[in-house]
């Protein structure tokens, strides 16, 4: 089922074939980030978009938009009969092919994304920090505008370089974000393998349906529409059964989709 030497060969062959595609994807994401940064800086007091909260927002928005797209594109060759045949006939076990996908989508891409984010964010932050220091009047206006919303924040406009995963108020939020990301990756990979035609659109529709169902059930049974999605956000009074059910659901959900991806890959056929 698993042989390290064969897995290494598989990874090497995959890299030789796909590194250009991955480089283009990252480059496109970086270009988008640069364009958005320029648009922000072009605004009056634009540097205020790059305080630590702004940087964190940029990071997680990019991560949550681009990671599922990347995950959905990993098995894109499966939509083409000829390239699917090549992928399925490569002498490696289904588990090795699936594991490689999980490593690239789940670990390597987020790491590469984080590095690419810093490549753009470091100059952004440096520029914003400089502007904040050299434009005290604007800075004061920014503080004043914030004081209406949040007194504590008003006196803490911070333009230092952010570490996004350290920005959460508590561990629950970080776990929730991580599990949500894993779920989205699992759904995207599964959708790309399960749906033969227009997998991306069908997967997005399924996600919306899932969201709708979870909101509906949470509303009907607990009168809290955000109970499932917002479970990790803050602690709330729950029955002992609910206190077990929701974290279990969140832990099982990504695992199920990744397992379903494995089975979809294993059972994939190619019609003549």
């Amino acid at each position, binding site marked *: 089922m698993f042989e390290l030497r064969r897995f290494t060969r598989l990874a*090497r062959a995959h890299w*030789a074939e796909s590194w250009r595609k991955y480089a283009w994807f990252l480059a496109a994401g970086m270009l988008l980030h640069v364009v958005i940064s320029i648009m922000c800086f072009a605004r009056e007091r634009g540097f205020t978009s790059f305080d630590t909260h702004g940087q964190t927002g940029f990071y997680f928005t990019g991560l949550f938009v681009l990671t599922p797209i990347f995950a959905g594109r990993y098995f894109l060759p499966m939509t083409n009969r000829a390239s699917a045949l090549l992928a399925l006939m490569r002498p*490696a076990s289904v588990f090795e092919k699936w594991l490689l996908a999980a490593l690239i989508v789940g670990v390597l891409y987020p790491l590469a994304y984080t590095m690419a984010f810093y490549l753009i964010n470091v100059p952004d932050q440096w520029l914003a920090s400089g502007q904040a220091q050299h434009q005290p009047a604007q800075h004061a206006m920014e503080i004043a505008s914030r004081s209406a919303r949040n007194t504590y924040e008003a006196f803490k406009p911070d333009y230092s370089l952010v570490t996004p995963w350290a920005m959460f108020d508590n561990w629950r939020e970080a776990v929730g974000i991580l599990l949500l990301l894993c779920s989205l990756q699992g759904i995207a990979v599964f959708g790309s393998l399960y749906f033969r035609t227009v997998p991306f659109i069908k997967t997005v529709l399924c996600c919306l349906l899932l969201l709708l169902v979870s909101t509906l059930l949470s509303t009907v049974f607990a009168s809290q529409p955000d109970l499932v999605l917002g479970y990790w956000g803050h602690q709330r009074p729950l029955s002992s059964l609910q206190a077990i059910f929701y974290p279990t659901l969140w832990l099982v959900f990504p695992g199920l989709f990744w397992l379903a991806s494995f089975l979809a890959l294993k059972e994939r056929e190619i019609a*003549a």
Partner: protein
Amino acid sequence: MGLSRHWHDWDLPLIRIEQLSFGYRKSPLYQDFNLCLNEPGVYGLFGRNGSGKSTLLLLLAGLLFPKGGHVDVQGHTPAKRRADFLSQVYIVPEEFHLPNLRPDKLAQTQSVFYPNFSSESFAEYLRIFEVPPERSFEEMSLGQKKKAAVAFALATFTPVLLLDEPTNGLDIISRDQFKTIMARPEQRQRIVLISTHQAHDLERIMSHILFIDGASLALSATMAELGSALSIGVAADAAALSAIPDILYSEALGTQQAYVAVNHAATAGEVNLELLYKALSLRKDAVLAVLAAKEKARV
């Protein structure tokens, strides 16, 4: 590698299909289909459009799963797509895909999966096919890419090689190049199963003919058996044709008459696959009866 190749026991080519049933949705394609190939050689797989030739190759490669029966290739169940099975079978489909690499990079990254792969043979086949090795596949024409894909497949030296219409899209010179490579001795030590409609093109290289008709294997015979049972040729005119006994099939070729008849001579004749194909397609029962009688007499 090449001429001095020696197979390991586990390398011995073997394909066995028993009582296979398969169909797409509600239309059955194979019912109680049986096939056994245990001799190395080049097998021509023929049949009308929609008879299931490509489907059979996909079933043997494990890319389609049988609805019933058993498929065994090299002692493996193809549908499980185990890694050790995949390293012993290579398929080139009619619509193929190559990653955008140069041939040498392809060999470097992919050959490691195939224990019998020969880099020397790959380079030689590319040279025979006149495929520019310095270009990436994206820069090649469709025909050049197809030749590169076939050259790689041939150089893997997997015990089983499945080719679906390998000469489609190739020009006349390239088809000759393909035949030159296929006729080499090292390619005759494995099972090469070629599904094709280009019967006349490839008859020189085939050692065995399989004909699928009506969801089952209608014919499985060696070229020698076919040559000794059937007389295939061209008569000068209709009068000359009428002098030939036991005509099974004939057609006009201008003023001449091409025919398939019972071979009453002691020596085996040439086999024209195109005429045989037509005879089998249009007068299957008569042709099969002659072959069966010849086999009975031989036994």
